[in-house]
């Protein structure tokens, strides 16, 4: 089979699922309360996109969620990459910071959300901080790994061209770690997105998580499903953007250069 054939097969799977869903709901084999029809979900989607829900349109819910994760991501990149590089090139920094990061990294962020709420309340800051922490660890660890994996021959060539230690870090080590850094961002963004939606389920008035949480309380199953689909699509979209970015910024990755 050709590559395009496989893609076609994937599309067929999705379409088939929607058709089964439509058939099941058409004959009402499952009550509408539990499973509304795809058409109803789409109508609800259209409705929330134009009219809105909870005093906010779908777009406002999406942008509330995206701006939280965007802000957290920005901070995580600006803080995480330098720390990761420092940990990668300096054993002292690595030994100092590694236990802190390795301690909190495996904890599900929602486990320390209550603590963050006690310390900082339930405002925007707490949510951004929570997502920041979720994204930060993978970025730092991937960056440090990438830096440590640098080919000694590349460093030596730069040295014998007269490069100083800082020039080697800036011109050789950091660009060389780019694939790992972006992988860290991808992993972090995945964790961050799931953490964000979960955090919004608990405490928020705007955002995709709070939208479906509220909809569920009013038994608006169609809106809950529409929300889930939007959350999934955004996660998929973010992943695709980052994969494209990785291909553009580090086209040598996986090639025998």
């Amino acid at each position, binding site marked *: 089979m050709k590559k395009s054939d496989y893609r076609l097969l994937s599309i067929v799977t999705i379409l088939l699922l929607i058709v089964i869903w439509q058939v099941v709901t058409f004959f009402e084999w499952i009550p509408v309360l539990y499973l509304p029809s795809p058409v109803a979900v789409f109508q609800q989607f259209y409705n929330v996109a134009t009219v809105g829900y909870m005093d906010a349109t779908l777009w406002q819910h999406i942008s509330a969620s995206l701006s939280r994760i965007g802000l957290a991501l920005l901070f995580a990149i600006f803080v995480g990459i330098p720390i990761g590089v420092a940990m990668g090139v300096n054993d002292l920094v690595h030994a100092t910071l590694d236990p802190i990061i390795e301690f909190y990294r495996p904890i599900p962020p929602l486990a320390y959300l209550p603590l963050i709420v006690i310390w900082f309340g339930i405002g925007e800051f707490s949510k951004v901080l929570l997502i920041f922490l979720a994204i930060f660890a993978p970025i730092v660890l991937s960056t440090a790994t990438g830096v440590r994996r640098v*080919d000694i*021959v*590349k460093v*030596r*060539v*730069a*040295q*014998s*061209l*007269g*490069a100083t230690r800082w*020039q080697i870090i800036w*011109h*050789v080590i950091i*660009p*060389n770690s*780019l694939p790992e850094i972006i992988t860290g961002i991808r992993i972090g963004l995945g964790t961050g997105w799931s953490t964000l939606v979960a955090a919004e389920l608990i405490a928020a008035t705007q955002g995709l998580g709070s939208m479906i949480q509220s909809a569920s309380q009013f038994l608006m199953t169609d809106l809950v499903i529409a929300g889930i689909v939007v959350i999934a699509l955004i996660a998929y979209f973010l992943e695709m953007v980052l994969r494209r970015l990785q291909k553009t910024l*580090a*086209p*040598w990755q996986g*090639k*025998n*250069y």
Partner: protein
Amino acid sequence: MSVLNVDHISAHYDDGLHRNCVLDDVSLQINANDLIVILGASGCGKTTLLNVIAGFTSPSIGKIELDGKLVSEPSAERGVIFQQDALLPWLSVLENVAFGLKIRGMPRIEREKIARHFLELVNLSKFEKHHSWELSGGMKQRVALARALASDPRILLMDEPFGALDALTREQMQELLLNVWSQTHKQMLLITHDIEEAIFLATELILMTPRPGKIAQRLPLNFSQRYVSGESARQIKSDPEFIRIREQVLEWFFHQETVRKSEEGI
């Protein structure tokens, strides 16, 4: 005065149990226009010697002087070319060649002009916009050569630069290297385990023996000068004199091996 003076170098390393001697009292001088080739079996310390000269590792005993000045760490005065290409894949061929000049703070226009000159010298002008993963093994080593030359080093150190190439490319690269050598008048030190390559290129051939690595023989040769004066490579390599020396060196290596084995009681 010699350009590079390697003065009684010894190198040891401790593996916790034993003190291993990698280099034992190695001395050599490189004078203007020399193309010195070090030939030896693996484990004879030739790469360690090059690393010491380049400044990547320091010797346990002895000193290295370049133009009479003591050297202890890597610098742009000693360009290095490794066996595996060490091009930076995020830079184009032109940017790779200009890299050393960029680090020095030379403005873009100036450094690209110099880089283009050296790309032309290694016949790669058409590939300046390519990236390293788009090049063949031989082309990568030509870029590495141009990059090392662009920084105008006093001496060029090469660690089995053609070791990873196929036989045909290898022959072409040897000729290219001699052309570059005659045009740039650079002093060079090349390490190889290929006997024919060593004899063809060297103005002085240094034979090393392993455990501990030391210099066993030095042979002044003139085949590279003959190539530069216009004789063809094949003509030189099939010359009875060339073949005689090749067999002599080969025999010497086999003899060394027999002696070593009998000493170790194998």
